[in-house]
């Protein structure tokens, strides 16, 4: 049984939220992912991921102040919860474990 459910894109979104720390809201997360990973992120994909992560309890949100450039709409800030942090650590550990299990005799394994 899977202990924590975390998709690849969801993991990226969570990591980005963690990086942005107090400044993690919609546009900022999108820009951060796009600049760091050099890939396009659609609003739809990102917001769906955010909704799902919040449902799972990995992140929580709170509304910020409405600003003028957003035509009076509040920013919604996201934050990783303790559960979310455990999920991220679990995901990292499994990967590390898998990395560690690759035997030395095959150093030339190619990943393509």
């Amino acid at each position, binding site marked *: 049984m899977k202990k924590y459910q975390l998709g690849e894109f969801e993991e990226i979104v969570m990591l980005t939220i963690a990086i942005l720390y107090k400044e993690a809201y*919609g546009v900022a997360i999108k820009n951060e992912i796009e600049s760091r990973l050099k890939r396009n992120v659609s609003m*739809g994909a990102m917001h*769906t991921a955010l909704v799902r992560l919040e449902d799972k309890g990995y992140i929580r949100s709170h509304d910020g102040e409405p*600003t003028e450039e957003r035509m009076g709409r509040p920013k919604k800030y996201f934050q990783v919860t303790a559960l979310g942090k455990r999920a991220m650590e679990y995901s990292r550990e499994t990967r590390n474990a898998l990395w560690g299990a690759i035997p030395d005799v095959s150093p030339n394994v190619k990943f393509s």
Partner: protein
Amino acid sequence: MSPPQLPLRFFRWFCHPKLRDSIEGDLMELYKERLIKNGKLKADAHFIKDVLLLFRPGIIRPTEGYQNLNSYGMYKNYFITAWRNVIRKKSSAAINVFGLTLGISCALIIFALVNYHLSFDNFHTDADRIYRFVTEEHRDEVEYDASVPPPFGKFFREDYTFSDQVARLYTGDNELITIERIGEKNKFNETIAFAEPDFFKIFNFPLSTGNPETILVEPNTAIITKKMAAKYFGDESAIGKVIRLNSKIDFTVSGVLQDLPVNSDIQTEIYFSYSTMKQYNEWAASDDAWGGITSSIKTYTKLKPGVNPTDVEQAVDEYVKRFRPKSKNVHHYKLQPLNDVHFNARYEGVMSKTTIWILSLVGVLLVLTASLNFINLTTAQAINRSKEVGVRKSLGGARGQLFWQFTIETGLVVLVATVLALAFSYAILPQLNSFLNTNISINLFTDTRLLLFVLALIVVVTGLSGAYPGIVLSGFKPVLALKGKLSGKQTGSFNIRRALIVTQFSISQILLLGLIVMFFQMRYFSKTDMGFDTDAIIMMPVGSNDEKLKTVKSQLLQVPGVENVSLCFGAPASDNHWTTSIKFDDRAETEPFSISHKGADEDYLSTFSLEIIAGRNLTPSDTVREFLVNENLLSQLNLASPEEILGKNITVNGSWKGPVVGVVKDFHEQSFHADIKPVFLTTSGNTYNSIAVKINMRNANETLTSIEKVWSGMYPDLIYKYDFLDDQIASFYQTEQQMVSIVYIFASIALIIGALGLYGLVSFMAVQKTKEIGIRKVLGGDVVQILWIFGKEFTALVVVAFLIAAPVGWLVMTEWLSNYAFKVDISLWMFALELFIIALVVLVTVGYRSLKAVVANPVESLRSE
């Protein structure tokens, strides 16, 4: 600059309201960025693309509206709160459930009973076209007979074309059936019938084996039910076997019927071919027997579709002119619809529609009292929920929501009560059935009507009991409720509660009054002198025209312990009547009243201790030579003194003629339902049907054994059977006995529920008056004075309820007593007794709780303010 409106509006429409603001903010921010960087065209295009990509599950709002997302949690909370309340107030919850269970159980049982009776004989095909021929006999008064003269059915079938089928059915009780099996003779006492073949075309009693076209056509054939077949022949096939009736007529079984449904008035399990009737009862089988009617023969018909029964009735009037032109007893033949047969008491119906309505009404009343009770208790506890209501309202609970919350809570209690009631009814059903002689079943899963009834009952009871408390509770003002400053006014008016209690107590008092009157009427039956001796007399049925009777009598007289033996048609009072008409002296006309004929030998008077007031007893004889008459005949004949009749001749039905030799003091010839009618006694030896034996009860068992020895010596083929006369007479009132027991149960239940309601009210009062009592005590009021605060309240309630119940009860019971020719008077002391019982119940219920309130230390009640 703003983004294109259409996609924006689309976005706003589809987006989940919770996400809308923040995502829209993001879209705006991005749009502005792009507008500066790439220009309006590209920014617009990006915007549209973003909106379209956002149109996906997770972002789109749920169709049912997002408010509902929360409701399940709310419902869960309702259940939790309801459960906590039950746990916290165990006793009042138990009282509530108990009261409702009682009420609902009664409703269920009454429903099953009513349903059972209404279902009688409703399963026949074209039941609306099936009728029974009945007779109105017009003399001085009209009498009703559920039969017609024996040949009627045959003539009607041949003379008219109104019907598809006509069938006669002769039913006889206590007939001797002999089965010879493997050289062994088995004797049975059974109810048998002679049926014409059409009988099974009119009624839907299907055959299990045999040819429906030929059964009962041949003489000396029989069909029996599966049950009987198993009883007589075990596993062997019954077809072709021989059944012997009364040791003389043999029948061959030609068919086996499916077992009869329980909801039919026709419960005979052995049918013989009608064409064999001649060998059994020549008179009943003859085509000329228009002179009399025997209740044994019933005539049924299935009319053709569209035939009007009134036309048939008019047509058959012709028979009266043809066959009974001179009779003073003018017959009117009528058609009684099949669905009336079970209910019309005039024509031997067993369950009158009135009784059914009264029962249903009692059921409704009991459910009503149970609901009122619930309302009372719940509103009395309302103050305990005030904080909860306050909190819910402050947090935005709407009145409607609170109302439904409390209604659902009530619904849960009702549901639990219903389940308990079902279990309870199921458990007591066997006793009820054996007691009422019924075959009621309660099966929720196969009986859709019952299922619907139960569901409807749950809804109605929830509505009745839940609505008012719901309105009261949900109407609390949150501020007052949270401060704990609710007064009586907000927790439901005290007057409404009074009205509820008065209603409840009126209902219980009416039932109780009914019970008291019924009880004393029953006591009257058993205590009042019938006019003859009923103790220590056994009655033994014998076949008529029995030459051995005299020998049996002399042998019985030699048995030690036997005091007197009489050969007779029947006991002075019995279910068996033989009525006829007489001519008196030399009057030309037949007298216009009917008279009861009792065949009796010279020992009849001494056996039953009947009293002669003038003249002498009959002299021994085997044929009719002289008559004894009762006092009542004198007044019917307008004679002033017994001397005027002594020595005068009377002629019975044109055949028997003889002088009246004595006058007997009036005795009750029937049950107390009927008036005393004219009677004559005579030594008509061929009518003797019974042996009456007066025995000494001191060695009753030995005597009875010796009598049995005499019996089996004389009648080796017959089954020894006897009844005590007083048991027979008690069985006249079996229906009343059942009625009394039922009313007794219902009155007790109504009283219990009423007492529960009263307890609710007194608890409420005690809580309300805590401070008042405290202050009164501090200021020196003594316990008795303060108790009277409670006392006067409840005295007033009981008195008001009594003022309502007394006239209603009086009306109902006067109506009931009018069924009896001999009855008790409803007197003041019955009302007094009723009031006394109610007062006692109130005292016990109220006394403890109010005393507890009054003796409480005032410090406790006044300390916190």
